[in-house]
């Protein structure tokens, strides 16, 4: 067992990484550790926890910009924004519950480093679309900044955006700036019931291709419909389409969508409360909590979802978000992802990540999508440049990275 370090400021963080680099001591970088069960296991390392490196640095509602230290609880940031009628538009998915933890325990830095996104990804993008700048320490122990505090900035390479989805393997952030957004005054959700997968794909595609500005689109199969507590009976599939904005606009767009989707059967409207409950449920992955079954996250072109799913076993349960572009797959017949990735390749490509799996599976399977040789080599070269001694979350994403 290694030591556990909790730097309280950027200078301490810098000093610690300098030491680790000099001594070739690997560090497992975490916030509060809500996602340590996701990804490959980092072996024989000290723990570098950012939980004490916390606090809001700067927040000006009229600038729509917020800067906070990396270890700041996400919940603290979200409630501060809420008090000003604002939010993080990418509504990060909460992995806590499916990984055996509680809701709302993750950190700001963790959400960015894992490039989290929730159901509104379709309209608002992922964490990487909202990051503006950061201060971080790379693997040589050099404290540096990248990006800025303004929304439009092309000064130098976009390192702040590249930090997102690096899972702490390139640099450890001490402070991050993101753009925030005004919360919509109203939201409602249109629901279609009993569609099969192909019908749902068509309905979601028609909705997304209309001018109704749908911000989220999901398909919940019958087996999972009851997981949205209190809303659905659980015998029929639910195809849900979220509309947000000023009240008059939402009402108008409901009309647009109803016309667009008239061929798909009866349409119900969930009012604001029910709508919020539904999308929060998806954001927290309620459908897959309280179980230990293997869970994969698959990104695919929406219209290829159906053919991909037909390549899985009969027992596979799939929740479709992002109009079918994001699939949460629980397949008891799936072993190490080989068959699943083969099905993915056959249907035109995409990527699959093991979100929940036993320690044995995590050690043997490719947790993140295997890369083509050229891209894998480029990935190793980038890692080598930023962390030449392999001390930052070594092996978390790929062996040797």
């Amino acid at each position: 067992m290694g030591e556990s370090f909790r730097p309280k400021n950027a200078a301490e963080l810098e000093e610690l990484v300098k030491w680790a680099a000099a001594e070739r001591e690997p560090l497992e970088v975490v916030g509060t550790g809500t996602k340590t069960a996701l990804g490959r296991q980092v072996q024989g390392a000290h723990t570098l926890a950012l939980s004490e490196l916390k606090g809001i640095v700067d927040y000006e509602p009229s600038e729509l910009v917020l800067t906070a230290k990396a270890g700041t609880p996400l919940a603290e940031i979200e409630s501060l924004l809420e008090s000003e009628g604002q939010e993080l538009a990418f509504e990060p998915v909460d992995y806590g519950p499916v990984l055996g933890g509680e809701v709302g325990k993750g950190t700001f830095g963790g959400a960015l480093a894992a490039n989290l996104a929730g159901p509104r990804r379709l309209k608002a993008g992922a964490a990487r679309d909202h990051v503006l700048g950061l201060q971080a320490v790379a693997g040589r122990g050099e404290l540096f900044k990248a990006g800025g505090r303004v929304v439009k900035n092309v000064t130098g390479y976009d390192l702040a955006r590249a930090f997102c989805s690096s899972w702490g393997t390139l640099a450890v952030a001490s402070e991050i700036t993101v753009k925030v957004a005004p919360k919509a005054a109203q939201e409602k959700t249109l629901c279609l019931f009993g569609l099969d997968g192909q019908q749902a794909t068509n309905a979601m595609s028609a909705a997304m291709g209309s001018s109704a500005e749908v911000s989220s689109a999901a398909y919940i199969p019958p087996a999972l419909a009851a997981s949205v507590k209190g809303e659905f009976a659980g015998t029929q599939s639910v195809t849900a389409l979220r509309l947000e904005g000023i009240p008059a606009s939402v009402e108008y767009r409901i009309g647009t969508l109803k016309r667009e989707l008239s061929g798909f059967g009866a349409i119900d409207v969930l009012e604001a409360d029910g709508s919020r409950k539904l999308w929060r449920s998806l954001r927290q992955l309620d459908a897959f909590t309280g179980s230990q079954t293997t869970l994969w996250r698959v990104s695919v072109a929406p219209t290829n979802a159906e053919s991909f799913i037909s390549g899985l076993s009969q027992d596979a349960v799939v929740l479709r978000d992002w109009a079918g572009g994001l699939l949460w797959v629980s397949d008891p017949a799936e072993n190490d992802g080989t068959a699943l990735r083969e099905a993915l390749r056959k249907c035109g490509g995409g990527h699959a990540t093991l979100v929940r799996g036993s320690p044995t599976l995590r050690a043997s399977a490719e947790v993140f999508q295997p890369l083509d040789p050229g891209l894998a080599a480029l990935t190793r070269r980038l890692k080598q440049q930023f962390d030449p001694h392999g001390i930052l979350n070594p092996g978390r994403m790929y062996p040797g990275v």
Partner: protein
Amino acid sequence: MSGIAMPKPSEKLLRNKMKIVQDLQQIIPGEGVISEEVELRPYETDALTAYRQLPLAVVLPETVDQVSRVLKYCYDNDVKVVPRGAGTSLSGGALPLADGILMSMMKFNQVLDIDFENRAVVVQPGVTNLGITHAVQHEGFYYAPDPSSQIACSIGGNIAENSGGVHSLKYGLTTNNVLGLEMVLMTGEIIRLGGKHLDSEGYDFLALMTGSEGLLGVVTEVTVRILQKPETARAALIGFPTSEEAGQCVAEIIGEGIIPGGMELMDKLAIDAAEDFVHAGYPLDVEALMIVELDGPEAEVDYLLDRVSAIATANNSTYLRVSQSEEERNTFWAGRKAAFPAVGRISPDYLCMDGTIPRKALPEVLRRMQDLSVKHDLRCANVFHAGDGNLHPLILYDANKPGELEAAEAFGADILRLCVEVGGVLTGEHGVGIEKRDLMPEMFTEDDLKQQQRVKCAFDEKQLLNPGKVFPVLHRCAELGRMHVHKGQLPFPDIPRF
């Protein structure tokens, strides 16, 4: 050419020109290699015309295989390569090198796949920005980023510069609208990133490529997302007696939670020049003019226009006109879109700057720019994307008067230092290129710049792709690899651990 130094040309390469041209002709037969001075002339500059340089040769590949083989050849022979799209860069990103090859990607001009169901389009990099919209508009779709040069600029160039535009406040920059790409590294390796699905696997190389100014790889294919056009769009022209009041109005609109499709400001000099040029019907008795565009369903647009009008009135606006037809809306924009050429009519030359500042600093920056105008004894017209704090000060000068270009450049540098001082950045959308290269240390420390150059080293270790741009000092990659090691005991008694 004024004060910006480029890497010293290699005498050996200059002497070997004939051999290099012959070798390249083996790879690209026919007319794909240009080496005669008269034919090289059109490629000597981009839209930053104060700088000109003839390249050793120009190649116009037509296939990915040719791009790969040319780059591999150049890699093996240490020949530098400058990629070029439509040549509309305002920062000198495509300025050739005397001993380097200029690679024009404009023969890659095909739309490869239009996929309405997945709302994605696959194109070759030489397709123009507007060309993408033209390919999909019959179904009501469009490609959102809209740089002013969209009729001419290429999507490959948009990737290189992470181009924005009038609508980026609401719809994002290029980086938010690209799903995938194919690129060739300097070694000739072909790499694909992303696709029609969201979020690429592994590291976000799409983020690094977008805005990399042609220093990391040559883009050979692009997948972008397209959006359904908003049902309606209406614009309001709002005049203010002072720039400060206009600036305050911008901050309050955003602060109220309204994100307009576009929100532009022009100052007196720019208003007068534009009105004189296109007769857009702009008021001439105001000091600042705002164009706000709201888009979406009609009910939403009407509601938001009422709120914007109320905020403007509370900020002492003296002129308000809301477009009543599509024709009138386009007229409002015609003046704004012609602002640069309009200013070009009242001055022999102008320099266009591109800093971004926090919105709240707008009044202060406008005031201090006036002081700088007096200090440098040059006029300055202001046109800006007010919604996202992106300024385009146009510095008026006459290149035929000795010392005026230098004075204009000094004025511009002062403006950019001011932007950084108030918490902003050197460039919002035009790129660093050669123009702002030597100002990078104003914004970044040596350690900051080292991290950026390490990205370059991961992609192009020999630094043959577009050298001399973006970075004021070219560190050799081996030199960047060194590290100051200080050995110690288990450190920091003051760091809590357990």
